[in-house]
Protein backbone atom coordinates (compact mmCIF):
# COMPACT_ATOMS: atom_id res chain seq x y z
CA UNK A 1 0.00 0.00 0.00
CA UNK A 2 1.24 3.48 -0.90
CA UNK A 3 2.17 5.90 1.87
CA UNK A 4 0.77 9.01 0.14
CA UNK A 5 -1.75 9.62 -2.63
CA UNK A 6 -5.33 8.49 -3.21
CA UNK A 7 -6.30 5.23 -1.43
CA UNK A 8 -3.06 5.33 0.52
CA UNK A 9 -2.18 5.06 4.21
CA UNK A 10 -2.32 8.88 4.42
CA UNK A 11 -5.88 9.08 3.07
CA UNK A 12 -7.09 6.36 5.46
CA UNK A 13 -5.30 8.02 8.37
CA UNK A 14 -6.97 11.31 7.45
CA UNK A 15 -10.39 9.70 7.74
CA UNK A 16 -9.45 8.16 11.09
CA UNK A 17 -8.10 11.48 12.44
CA UNK A 18 -11.25 13.25 11.18
CA UNK A 19 -13.41 10.91 13.28
CA UNK A 20 -11.13 11.40 16.30
CA UNK A 21 -11.32 15.16 15.83
CA UNK A 22 -15.12 15.16 15.72
CA UNK A 23 -15.27 13.00 18.86
CA UNK A 24 -12.83 15.33 20.59
CA UNK A 25 -14.87 18.41 19.62
CA UNK A 26 -17.97 16.81 21.14
CA UNK A 27 -16.02 16.00 24.32
CA UNK A 28 -14.69 19.58 24.55
CA UNK A 29 -18.19 21.01 24.09
CA UNK A 30 -19.69 18.63 26.65
CA UNK A 31 -16.99 19.44 29.14
CA UNK A 32 -17.28 23.18 28.54
CA UNK A 33 -21.03 23.09 29.10
CA UNK A 34 -21.36 20.50 31.87
CA UNK A 35 -20.36 21.25 35.45
CA UNK A 36 -17.60 18.98 36.69
CA UNK A 37 -19.82 17.04 39.16
CA UNK A 38 -21.99 15.88 36.30
CA UNK A 39 -18.98 14.99 34.22
CA UNK A 40 -18.17 12.06 36.48
CA UNK A 41 -14.55 13.01 37.08
CA UNK A 42 -13.49 11.47 40.40
CA UNK A 43 -9.76 11.81 40.21
CA UNK A 44 -7.09 13.41 38.11
CA UNK A 45 -3.78 11.89 37.03
CA UNK A 46 -0.47 13.70 36.81
CA UNK A 47 3.04 13.01 35.74
CA UNK A 48 5.10 14.19 38.67
CA UNK A 49 8.79 14.02 39.38
CA UNK A 50 8.56 10.52 40.86
CA UNK A 51 6.28 9.17 38.11
CA UNK A 52 2.54 9.14 37.34
CA UNK A 53 0.14 9.62 40.26
CA UNK A 54 -3.63 9.70 40.56
CA UNK A 55 -5.03 12.29 42.92
CA UNK A 56 -8.60 11.57 44.01
CA UNK A 57 -10.94 14.47 44.64
CA UNK A 58 -10.96 13.53 48.35
CA UNK A 59 -7.37 14.71 48.50
CA UNK A 60 -8.25 18.17 47.21
CA UNK A 61 -8.96 21.17 49.37
CA UNK A 62 -11.92 23.36 48.46
CA UNK A 63 -14.16 23.69 45.43
CA UNK A 64 -11.63 25.89 43.62
CA UNK A 65 -9.45 22.85 43.01
CA UNK A 66 -12.22 21.16 41.08
CA UNK A 67 -12.66 24.21 38.86
CA UNK A 68 -8.92 24.32 38.39
CA UNK A 69 -8.94 20.68 37.25
CA UNK A 70 -11.90 21.45 35.01
CA UNK A 71 -9.97 24.30 33.41
CA UNK A 72 -6.88 22.10 33.11
CA UNK A 73 -8.73 19.24 31.44
CA UNK A 74 -10.65 21.60 29.17
CA UNK A 75 -7.45 23.32 28.06
CA UNK A 76 -5.71 19.99 27.48
CA UNK A 77 -8.63 18.68 25.42
CA UNK A 78 -8.87 21.92 23.46
CA UNK A 79 -5.14 21.71 22.62
CA UNK A 80 -5.66 18.06 21.69
CA UNK A 81 -8.52 19.04 19.37
CA UNK A 82 -6.35 21.74 17.76
CA UNK A 83 -3.55 19.21 17.18
CA UNK A 84 -6.02 16.72 15.68
CA UNK A 85 -7.49 19.40 13.41
CA UNK A 86 -4.04 20.40 12.16
CA UNK A 87 -3.06 16.76 11.69
CA UNK A 88 -6.22 16.23 9.65
CA UNK A 89 -5.35 19.22 7.46
CA UNK A 90 -1.75 18.00 7.10
CA UNK A 91 -2.92 14.57 5.97
CA UNK A 92 -5.32 16.11 3.42
CA UNK A 93 -2.71 17.10 0.79
CA UNK A 94 -0.64 14.00 1.61
CA UNK A 95 -3.73 11.89 0.91
CA UNK A 96 -4.17 13.75 -2.37
CA UNK A 97 -0.55 12.94 -3.30
CA UNK A 98 0.73 16.47 -2.89
CA UNK A 99 2.74 16.66 0.34
CA UNK A 100 4.50 19.92 -0.55
CA UNK A 101 1.37 22.03 -0.20
CA UNK A 102 1.92 25.79 0.36
CA UNK A 103 0.03 25.68 3.69
CA UNK A 104 1.83 22.57 4.97
CA UNK A 105 4.74 24.43 6.71
CA UNK A 106 2.36 26.70 8.63
CA UNK A 107 0.17 23.80 9.72
CA UNK A 108 3.18 21.81 10.91
CA UNK A 109 4.61 24.83 12.73
CA UNK A 110 1.28 25.54 14.43
CA UNK A 111 0.95 21.90 15.43
CA UNK A 112 4.44 22.03 16.95
CA UNK A 113 3.57 25.15 18.92
CA UNK A 114 0.26 23.62 20.05
CA UNK A 115 2.05 20.48 21.33
CA UNK A 116 4.63 22.56 23.21
CA UNK A 117 1.98 24.93 24.60
CA UNK A 118 -0.15 22.00 25.72
CA UNK A 119 2.78 20.42 27.59
CA UNK A 120 3.78 23.70 29.24
CA UNK A 121 0.21 24.58 30.23
CA UNK A 122 -0.29 21.17 31.80
CA UNK A 123 2.93 21.61 33.77
CA UNK A 124 1.82 25.01 35.05
CA UNK A 125 -1.66 23.71 35.94
CA UNK A 126 -0.13 20.71 37.75
CA UNK A 127 2.36 22.84 39.63
CA UNK A 128 -0.34 25.23 40.87
CA UNK A 129 -2.76 22.44 41.77
CA UNK A 130 -0.20 20.39 43.67
CA UNK A 131 1.14 23.42 45.50
CA UNK A 132 -2.16 25.07 46.46
CA UNK A 133 -4.88 22.50 46.74
CA UNK A 134 -3.53 19.01 47.31
CA UNK A 135 -3.32 17.38 50.73
CA UNK A 136 -0.09 15.45 50.96
CA UNK A 137 -0.06 12.07 52.71
CA UNK A 138 2.47 11.68 55.54
CA UNK A 139 3.96 15.03 54.72
CA UNK A 140 5.33 13.75 51.39
CA UNK A 141 4.91 16.44 48.75
CA UNK A 142 4.61 15.84 45.06
CA UNK A 143 7.02 17.64 42.79
CA UNK A 144 5.71 18.58 39.37
CA UNK A 145 7.36 17.34 36.19
CA UNK A 146 7.80 18.78 32.71
CA UNK A 147 6.71 16.63 29.76
CA UNK A 148 10.00 16.79 27.88
CA UNK A 149 8.83 14.22 25.31
CA UNK A 150 6.00 16.48 24.17
CA UNK A 151 8.27 19.53 24.05
CA UNK A 152 10.82 17.54 22.04
CA UNK A 153 8.09 16.37 19.63
CA UNK A 154 6.79 19.93 19.25
CA UNK A 155 10.25 21.26 18.43
CA UNK A 156 10.81 18.45 15.90
CA UNK A 157 7.55 19.49 14.20
CA UNK A 158 8.74 23.11 14.03
CA UNK A 159 11.98 21.93 12.37
CA UNK A 160 9.98 19.71 9.99
CA UNK A 161 7.87 22.74 9.06
CA UNK A 162 11.04 24.48 7.89
CA UNK A 163 12.03 21.37 5.89
CA UNK A 164 8.63 21.39 4.17
CA UNK A 165 8.99 25.12 3.53
CA UNK A 166 12.26 24.50 1.68
CA UNK A 167 10.73 21.50 -0.11
CA UNK A 168 7.85 23.61 -1.36
CA UNK A 169 10.26 26.33 -2.57
CA UNK A 170 12.32 23.70 -4.43
CA UNK A 171 9.24 22.16 -6.00
CA UNK A 172 8.00 25.58 -7.17
CA UNK A 173 11.39 26.41 -8.62
CA UNK A 174 11.54 23.04 -10.36
CA UNK A 175 8.05 23.52 -11.81
CA UNK A 176 8.90 27.00 -13.05
CA UNK A 177 12.15 25.93 -14.70
CA UNK A 178 11.63 25.84 -18.44
Amino acid at each position, binding site marked *: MKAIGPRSIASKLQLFVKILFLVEIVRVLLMALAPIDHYGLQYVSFDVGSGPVQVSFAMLRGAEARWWIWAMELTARFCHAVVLYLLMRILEPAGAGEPFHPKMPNRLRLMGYAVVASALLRTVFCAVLLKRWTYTASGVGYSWAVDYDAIFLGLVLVVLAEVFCRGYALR*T*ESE*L*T*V
Partner: protein
Amino acid sequence: MGIRVHLDRVMLERGVSLTELAGRVGITLANLSILKSNKAKAIRFSTLDALCKELECAPGDILKYDSRGTDAE
Protein backbone atom coordinates in the same frame (compact mmCIF):
# COMPACT_ATOMS: atom_id res chain seq x y z
CA MET B 1 13.59 39.80 -10.73
CA GLY B 2 15.16 42.18 -13.22
CA ILE B 3 15.41 39.69 -16.08
CA ARG B 4 12.57 40.16 -18.57
CA VAL B 5 11.66 37.71 -21.32
CA HIS B 6 10.76 39.33 -24.62
CA LEU B 7 9.75 36.15 -26.35
CA ASP B 8 6.44 37.60 -27.54
CA ARG B 9 8.21 40.44 -29.38
CA VAL B 10 10.69 38.09 -31.09
CA MET B 11 7.87 35.69 -31.99
CA LEU B 12 5.86 38.56 -33.48
CA GLU B 13 8.84 39.68 -35.59
CA ARG B 14 9.34 36.12 -36.87
CA GLY B 15 5.61 35.52 -37.31
CA VAL B 16 5.62 32.34 -35.23
CA SER B 17 2.74 31.24 -33.03
CA LEU B 18 3.17 29.84 -29.51
CA THR B 19 1.87 26.40 -30.47
CA GLU B 20 4.12 26.22 -33.52
CA LEU B 21 7.20 27.29 -31.57
CA ALA B 22 6.45 24.80 -28.76
CA GLY B 23 6.31 21.99 -31.31
CA ARG B 24 9.49 23.08 -33.07
CA VAL B 25 11.49 23.60 -29.86
CA GLY B 26 10.18 20.44 -28.22
CA ILE B 27 8.81 21.87 -24.98
CA THR B 28 5.24 21.90 -23.76
CA LEU B 29 2.88 24.75 -24.56
CA ALA B 30 2.36 25.27 -20.81
CA ASN B 31 6.10 25.73 -20.20
CA LEU B 32 6.47 28.07 -23.15
CA SER B 33 3.53 30.07 -21.86
CA ILE B 34 5.21 30.31 -18.42
CA LEU B 35 8.34 31.61 -20.12
CA LYS B 36 6.45 34.09 -22.31
CA SER B 37 4.47 35.50 -19.37
CA ASN B 38 7.64 36.11 -17.31
CA LYS B 39 6.61 33.62 -14.63
CA ALA B 40 9.61 31.32 -15.12
CA LYS B 41 12.14 31.08 -12.28
CA ALA B 42 14.89 29.58 -14.46
CA ILE B 43 15.63 28.60 -18.03
CA ARG B 44 17.81 25.67 -19.10
CA PHE B 45 20.65 26.33 -21.53
CA SER B 46 19.23 23.57 -23.73
CA THR B 47 15.86 25.39 -23.95
CA LEU B 48 17.54 28.72 -24.65
CA ASP B 49 19.72 27.08 -27.27
CA ALA B 50 16.70 25.52 -28.99
CA LEU B 51 14.76 28.80 -28.90
CA CYS B 52 17.66 30.76 -30.37
CA LYS B 53 18.11 28.14 -33.09
CA GLU B 54 14.43 28.17 -34.08
CA LEU B 55 13.99 31.93 -33.86
CA GLU B 56 17.41 32.65 -35.38
CA CYS B 57 18.35 35.13 -32.69
CA ALA B 58 20.81 35.64 -29.83
CA PRO B 59 19.96 35.05 -26.14
CA GLY B 60 20.14 38.82 -25.64
CA ASP B 61 17.22 39.28 -28.02
CA ILE B 62 14.99 37.13 -25.80
CA LEU B 63 16.32 38.09 -22.37
CA LYS B 64 16.76 41.69 -21.24
CA TYR B 65 17.76 43.17 -17.92
CA ASP B 66 15.42 45.77 -16.46
CA SER B 67 16.72 47.36 -13.22
CA ARG B 68 13.24 48.66 -12.35
CA GLY B 69 11.96 45.12 -12.03
CA THR B 70 14.48 44.21 -9.30
CA ASP B 71 12.67 46.13 -6.54
CA ALA B 72 9.27 44.72 -7.43
CA GLU B 73 10.33 41.12 -6.58
